[in-house]
C-alpha cells in the first residue's frame, strides 16, 4: 500500500492574502525516506506553503495529513511535536551566545548546557557536521551557523526536515558537504523537503520534485530525468531569454573609472566585518564581479564605495580619476557614479513612497535642474514622466499608475531601481546583489542591462553571491573573504572550483598557484 509510505500528504491547501492567492489548491505527497524538491521562482508560493506546513501560517482551506491522519498544525511547536523540523533561510541565532546556548533556547525541555553540548557533539560527529558547541555564534561562518540550525532541528528527532534555500549562503564545497549529510539522513529513513531554485543541485540530490508557479502545482517530476532547461521551463512557464555577453579582455589598457586602493574600515559594530586593504580597479567597458559568501564584508565595502561611509583619505577611492574618498554619496553621484544597494525596501527605495517619489530619492542632486524648480520645489509632472519612461524601458509590472514601492513585487521593484540609475547613463555603476530574489525573466533583463551599460563604455561593479550570475556577466571575478579582496581572475581562467576555494578562504594572494592545484 502506498498509503503506508506517505509521511505527509497535502490536499487542496489554499492561502489567500487579500486578493492574492499565494497558494491555490496545492496537492503534495512526501514519502518516507525521500528527498523531495519544491521548485519555483521567487513569489511562486514556496515559502507560504512551507509556513503552513510548519504552523506559522494558517491555511484558508485544504487539509494536511500526517501518516494518513488529518492534523491541524496550529503552531511551530505543534509541528515539532508531530515530527516536522525546519531550517530557515534566515537564521535566528543570537550572535553573543554560544552554539550550545542557542540550541538550548529553542528547546521546550529544560536541560543543562553541558548535556546539550554533548548531544550536539554526538550529532555533529554522526552526520558530518563539524561544530564546536562552545564557540560564540558571532565568530562562526555562515556555513557553521547553518550547522547549528540543522543540529538544533535534528535534536527534536524529526521525521520530516524542511530546508529553505539552504545553499544560498554556502560555497560550492560547503554545499557538497551538506548534500552528503542530507543523503545520510535519507538513508536513515528520514524525509526531506528541499526548497530551492537552483536546478543543478536539485538534479544532483532529489528523488522527486514538485514545481510551483503562481501558487499552483504545475507538475511533479523526477528531476534526474529532466534537464536544467526543461525544469526551468516548468518553473517559469516559458523559455527564459539567455543573456548575451562578449567578455572583454581585462588586460587591455582602458581608462580606469573606479579605483579603490588600500581601503581599510574598522568594524562599526562587534558583528560587522572590518575591511582590510581592499584594492580594485574597474576600467571603462568592464563588468567586474565580486563573489563571496554572505557576510564577508560585501555590505561594508558597498557602503564605503557608495559614500554612505566616508574614508579617512580622499585618494582611497577615485571616481573618473578624481579623489572621492571624502565625498558623500551625492558628491560621488555628481562625479557620474550610480549605486544599487542589496536591500530594496528601506534602502534602495522608501517603501511607503510612490515610484515617482522614489525616483527623486537618488537623483535629486544629479537631476536637480529637471526635477526641482528653483532647487527646492518638486516638479511632480517631470517626475511622473521620467518614472513612466523607466517603467517602460525596464518592463516594470505594476498594479496602479504610480504605486507605493512596497506594492511592487521584489523583482519589479528591483527592475525599477536599476532602471532609475541606468536612466542617468552613469559612467560608473556599483550594484550589490542585482537579482537576489528576482524571478528568472526579470533577472535576465537586469543582467543584460548591466552588460549593455558596460558595452557603452561605463565601468560596472557587481557584488553577488550567485556564482552563476557572475560567470554569466563578468569579465573578471574577484573574491571577498573575511574583509579581504582577491585579485580579479579573468573570466577565461576562472572556474567554479577556483572561485569556490577562494570563497572558502584559500590564500587570496596567489590565485595562479591555486589554478594549477585545481587543474
Amino acid at each position, binding site marked *: 500500500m502506498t498509503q503506508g509510505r506517505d509521511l505527509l500528504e497535502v490536499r487542496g491547501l489554499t492561502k489567500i492574502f487579500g486578493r492574492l492567492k499565494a497558494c491555490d489548491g496545492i496537492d503534495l505527497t512526501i514519502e518516507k525516506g525521500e528527498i523531495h524538491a519544491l521548485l519555483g521562482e521567487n513569489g511562486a508560493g514556496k515559502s507560504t506553503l512551507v509556513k503552513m506546513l510548519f504552523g506559522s501560517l494558517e491555511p484558508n482551506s485544504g487539509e494536511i495529513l500526517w501518516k494518513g491522519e488529518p492534523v491541524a498544525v496550529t503552531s511551530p511547536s505543534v509541528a515539532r511535536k508531530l515530527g516536522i523540523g525546519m531550517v530557515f533561510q534566515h537564521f535566528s541565532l543570537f550572535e553573543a551566545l554560544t552554539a550550545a546556548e542557542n540550541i538550548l533556547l529553542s528547546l521546550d525541555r529544560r536541560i543543562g548546557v553541558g548535556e546539550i553540548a554533548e548531544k550536539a557533539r554526538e550529532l555533529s560527529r554522526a552526520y558530518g557536521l563539524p561544530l564546536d558547541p562552545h564557540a560564540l555564534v558571532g565568530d562562526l561562518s555562515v556555513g557553521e551557523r547553518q550547522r547549528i540550525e540543522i543540529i538544533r532541528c535534528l535534536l527534536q528527532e524529526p521525521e520530516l526536515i524542511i530546508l529553505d534555500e539552504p545553499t544560498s549562503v554556502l560555497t560550492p564545497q560547503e554545499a557538497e558537504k551538506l548534500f552528503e549529510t542530507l543523503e545520510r539522513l535519507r538513508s536513515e529513513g528520514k524525509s526531506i523537503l528541499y526548497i530551492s531554485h537552483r536546478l543543478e543541485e536539485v538534479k544532483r540530490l532529489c528523488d522527486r520534485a514538485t514545481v510551483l508557479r503562481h501558487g499552483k502545482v504545475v507538475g511533479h517530476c523526477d528531476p534526474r530525468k529532466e534537464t536544467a532547461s526543461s525544469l526551468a521551463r516548468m518553473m517559469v512557464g516559458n523559455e527564459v531569454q539567455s543573456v548575451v555577453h562578449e567578455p572583454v579582455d581585462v588586460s587591455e589598457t582602458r581608462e580606469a573609472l573606479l579605483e579603490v586602493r588600500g581601503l581599510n574600515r574598522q568594524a562599526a559594530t562587534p558583528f560587522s566585518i572590518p575591511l582590510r586593504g581592499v584594492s580594485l580597479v574597474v576600467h571603462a567597458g568592464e563588468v567586474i564581479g565580486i563573489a563571496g559568501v554572505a557576510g564577508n564584508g560585501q555590505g561594508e565595502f558597498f557602503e564605503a564605495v557608495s559614500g554612505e561611509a566616508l574614508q579617512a583619505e580622499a585618494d582611497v577611492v577615485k571616481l573618473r580619476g578624481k579623489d572621492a574618498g571624502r565625498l558623500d*554619496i551625492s558628491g560621488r553621484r555628481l562625479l557620474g557614479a550610480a549605486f544599487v544597494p542589496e536591500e530594496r525596501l528601506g534602502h534602495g527605495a522608501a517603501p511607503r513612497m510612490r515610484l515617482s517619489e522614489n525616483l527623486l530619492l537618488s537623483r535629486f542632486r544629479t537631476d536637480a535642474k529637471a526635477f526641482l524648480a528653483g532647487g527646492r520645489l518638486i516638479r511632480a509632472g517631470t517626475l511622473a514622466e521620467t518614472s513612466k519612461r523607466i517603467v517602460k524601458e525596464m518592463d516594470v509590472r505594476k498594479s496602479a499608475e504610480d504605486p507605493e514601492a512596497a506594492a511592487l513585487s521584489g523583482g519589479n521593484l528591483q527592475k525599477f531601481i536599476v532602471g532609475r540609475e541606468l536612466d542617468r547613463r552613469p559612467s560608473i555603476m556599483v550594484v550589490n546583489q542585482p537579482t537576489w530574489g528576482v524571478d528568472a525573466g526579470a533577472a535576465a533583463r537586469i543582467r543584460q542591462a548591466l552588460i549593455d551599460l558596460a558595452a557603452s563604455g561605463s565601468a560596472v561593479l557587481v557584488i553577488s553571491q550567485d556564482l552563476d550570475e557572475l560567470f554569466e556577466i563578468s569579465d573578471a571575478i574577484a573574491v571577498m573573504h573575511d574583509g579581504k579582496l582577491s585579485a580579479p581572475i579573468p573570466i577565461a581562467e576562472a572556474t567554479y572550483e577556483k572561485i569556490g576555494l577562494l570563497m572558502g578562504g584559500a590564500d587570496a594572494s596567489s590565485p595562479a598557484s591555486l589554478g594549477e592545484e585545481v587543474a
Partner: protein
Amino acid sequence: MRIELVKRQQRSALFSALSPFIALALTILAGAILFAFLGKNPATALYYYFVDPLLETWSLHELAIKSAPLILIAVGLSICFLSNNWNIGAEGQFIMGAVVGSMLPVMFPEFQYWFVLPLMLVMGIAGGAAYAAIPAFLKVRFNTNEILTSLMLVYVAQLFLDWLVRGPWRNPAGFNFPETVRFHAHAILPEILPASGRAHWGFVFALIAAVALWFILSRTLTGFEVKVMGQSPRAGRFAGFSRPKLIFFAFLLSGGLAGLAGISEVSGAMGQLRPVISPGYGFTAIIVAFLGRLNPLGIVAAGLVLGLTYLGGEAAQISLGVSDKVARVFQGMLLFFVLGCDTLIHYRVRFIGSPAQKPVEEA
C-alpha cells in the same frame, strides 16, 4: 490565553480616513458614560460641553485664543514626528519663547517703539528654538533619547519661569503677587476684530504657519527629506540626506513655532508673565498633531476640536459644577481612541488559546 497583534496585509483606506471621526465619536460616547457616573444628565452635559461654547460670538473668539497655540505648536510637532524626532518638550519651548520675548517689556519698560512687538515675536521664536536645540544637540552628539531630554527640560522651564516671576522679574508695585509688570501698549499683540471679541493675531499666525508647512511638506524637497528620513532612515542616508541636519531642522522649527505660540499667548491674551502661562498647550498639541493625522491642514481642524475641550471644560465647571480637570480627561480619552483606532487599522487582534489544543500522539 494569549492576545497577539497581527499586522494586516492591507490597510483600509476608508477607515484610515475615518479614524479621527470614529475616535471623536467614541470619546463623546465615553464622555457621556463618564457624566452619567458623575450623576449628571449626559445629554445636557455634552450640550454644555461641546455645543454651548459655539453659540456665541465672544466664545468663538475664546475658541480662537485657545486653538491658536495648539495649532502653532502641533504643526511644528508634525514635522518632528514625521521625521521620527519625538519632541515631547513643546511645553518648555512655549514657556522659554514667552520668557525670552518678554525680556523687552519687562526689563526695559521705557523702551517703547512700534517695533518692540515684532522684535518680541522674533525673540520668542529664537528662545523656543534655542531651547529645542538642547535635546537636538544631545541627540546628535551623544545619541541620547530625545523623548526623555525634551520632556525633562519642560520642568526646568516651568521652574525657571516660576523663579523669575517670584524673584527678579516680580512687579515691584504688584502687592507681592507673583506677576511681572503689565506690558506697555507697544508690547501687546492686537486683537483681530476688537469690536466683537478678544481673539488676537496669534490665530492668524497659526493659520499662516499651517498653510506654509503644508506647502513645504507636500511640495518641496525639504518635505520629501522629512518624510523619507522618518519612514526609512537608511533610504534617506542612501539619498544623501544628513541626519544631524534634519534633527536640528525639526527641533529648531518646532521649538521656534512653540516659542512664537508662547510669546503670542503672553503678549496677546495675558499682557504679563505669571507662574503658570499654559494649561498644558505643549502636551495637548501632541494630541492635536495625531488627531490631525500629522497633516498641517488636518491639524487646524484638530486644534479647534481640542480648543473646544478647554472651553467646554470651563463651561462644564460653571454650568454643571464638575471639576475643570474633565477637560484633561476628555483630551486623554481622545488621544487613547485615536491611537487605538490607528492601531486596529494597522493590526488585527488575535486570541490564541493555550498551546495544547490537539493531543499529538508520540511516535
